[in-house]
């Protein structure tokens, strides 16, 4: 907020060196006023405050106490919290890779269908899971993957496969939550890729056919390079979301069994809001933010070599 208002004030008194009239300036400021106010108070200030709070020890009741880098020192020696970063990274990478692969595969297959109604039917089917809230999905998936009574184990049982501890074994629980997240989110990448594939110019595709390229070659050499900017965008968005994974593990496993599905955001919730350690919680938040920014940066770096811009 201070930064924003200072900016507004400084630029407001700057002598006008461009043609915008005094009335237009006032109009512009009036129009952005509400947005600036709300974005400042509930996004910009909290970013600065989150960083600031991470240098304090604060239990909400007594007044905050400056502790310097203590929270960060503690974080880097706090085994369970460090583990939550590993858990999050592993689950997030799995989610992103699967979500992109499934979304792209289905998009390519749907795109090959010539009949419009066939495309519409599949598009609707793959989109529907996105209409349910993650809370709703976590509830019914919890029942479906129930160890004793769940439908999934029932059908596996018919095939002679013994009951799988989907949510009650550490590795299995993390994998199940990854699959459930992919089940719901694949529709997002699917919709993006269908739109991108439709925008691939037909003359390019015809040219590659005339040159004798088969469907697989056309896909790998023409279509995927042409939609690679969309793939990059999907990878970035999917990863930022997956790094914040909270609802499904919180509702289905409470971060367990043990700490197998305790993601960073669950650890932060426990430290910050259950143990009322706002300073320590903020430090976890800042390290998570840094991790997200670094990974996003790496994605863009990799994209320099891999993404094809027309």
């Amino acid at each position, binding site marked *: 907020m201070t930064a924003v208002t200072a900016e507004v004030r400084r630029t407001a008194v700057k002598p006008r060196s461009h043609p915008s009239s005094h009335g237009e300036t006032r109009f512009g400021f009036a129009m952005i006023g509400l947005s600036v106010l*709300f974005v400042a108070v*509930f996004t910009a200030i909290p970013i600065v405050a989150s960083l600031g*709070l991470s240098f304090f020890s604060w239990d909400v009741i007594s007044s905050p106490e400056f502790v310097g880098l203590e929270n960060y020192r503690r974080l880097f020696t706090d085994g369970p919290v460090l583990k939550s970063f590993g858990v999050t990274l592993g689950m997030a990478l799995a989610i992103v890779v699967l979500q992109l692969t499934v979304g792209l595969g289905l998009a390519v297959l749907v795109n090959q269908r010539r009949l419009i109604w066939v495309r519409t039917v599949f598009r609707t089917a793959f*989109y529907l899971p996105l209409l349910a809230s993650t*809370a709703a999905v976590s509830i019914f998936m919890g029942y479906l993957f129930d160890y004793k009574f769940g439908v999934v184990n029932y059908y596996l049982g018919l095939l002679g496969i013994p009951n799988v501890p989907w949510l009650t074994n550490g590795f299995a629980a993390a994998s199940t939550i990854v699959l459930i997240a992919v089940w719901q989110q694949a529709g997002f990448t699917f919709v993006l890729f269908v739109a991108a594939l439709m925008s691939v110019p037909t003359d390019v595709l015809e040219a590659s056919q005339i040159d004798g390229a088969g469907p697989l070659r056309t896909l790998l050499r023409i279509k995927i390079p042409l939609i690679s900017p969309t793939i990059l965008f999907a990878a970035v968005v999917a990863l930022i979301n997956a790094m914040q994974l*909270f609802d499904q593990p919180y509702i289905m496993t409470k971060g367990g069994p043990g700490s197998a599905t305790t993601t960073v955001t669950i650890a932060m919730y426990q430290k910050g809001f259950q143990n009322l350690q706002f300073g320590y919680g903020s430090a976890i938040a800042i390290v998570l933010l840094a991790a997200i920014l670094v990974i996003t940066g790496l994605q863009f770096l990799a994209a320099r070599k891999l993404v094809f811009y027309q």
Partner: protein
Amino acid sequence: MIHSTSTLARIGRGTGVAILVIAAMVALGPLLWTVTTSLRTPAEAFTNPPQWFSLHPDFSNYGAVFDRIPIGRFFVNSVVVTGLIVVGQTITCTLSGYAFAMVSFPGRSVIFGIFLATMMVPLQTIIIPVFVIVRYLGLSDSPLSLVVSALGSAFGTFLMRQYFLQMPRELGEAARIDGAGHFQTFLMIYAKMAGPAIATLAILNFSGFWAEFYRPLIFLQSQDSFTLPLGLVGLQGNLGTGSISVVLAGVVLAILPSVVLFVFAQRYFIAGITAGASR
């Protein structure tokens, strides 16, 4: 191409269709099970094999869910919270998006740059200060806390700005020559043409905030303030496996408004997803 339709190509196409059909069954199966199980009696709900088609639907669960929890109250809370955010953001983002696109004022690019920078920061990493501010404003445990802290949106502003940027400036200039004021030009000419962008933003906000679980979990403590997702998770936690059909009835009720809206405004749901990709 058509002449070279070999057996191999036909097998390939058949496999493609088969994969699509299986994928659609996987995508829809859990949703179908949720609906049909919500129509079984609580005693049968967890008995296998599951019922994929309801021959004798039992709607008693839909009554029971109202008796077990104040789901009517949750519903009203969700409608009010989502509705106010949708309307509020439509106003704030349309105004600011227009200004950043069409009005020249000093500091415009710097302020817009700050907006873009905040878009990079996920909500979860700033939730502690947001919670403190909400509490300081005296809004803790009120559904209004969810509304007030979501009335501004850098992304929404960005989305509206992109749309206004494509509009011809000549229309506004002509209106100005005819004596229309700045605000009149905005309201009577440009805002009227912004319908598709407003619809996209509204749908995006509806789906996001109707389903929201994280902020309600942190901001709200008493059951009377709960929104639907939070209330349903509480219901699931309080009941044993004996009444999953009641819980699932609640889940179906919570999803239904999204499905109805999707039927009528499908293209704006799709536009909402692809809108960000133009960045």
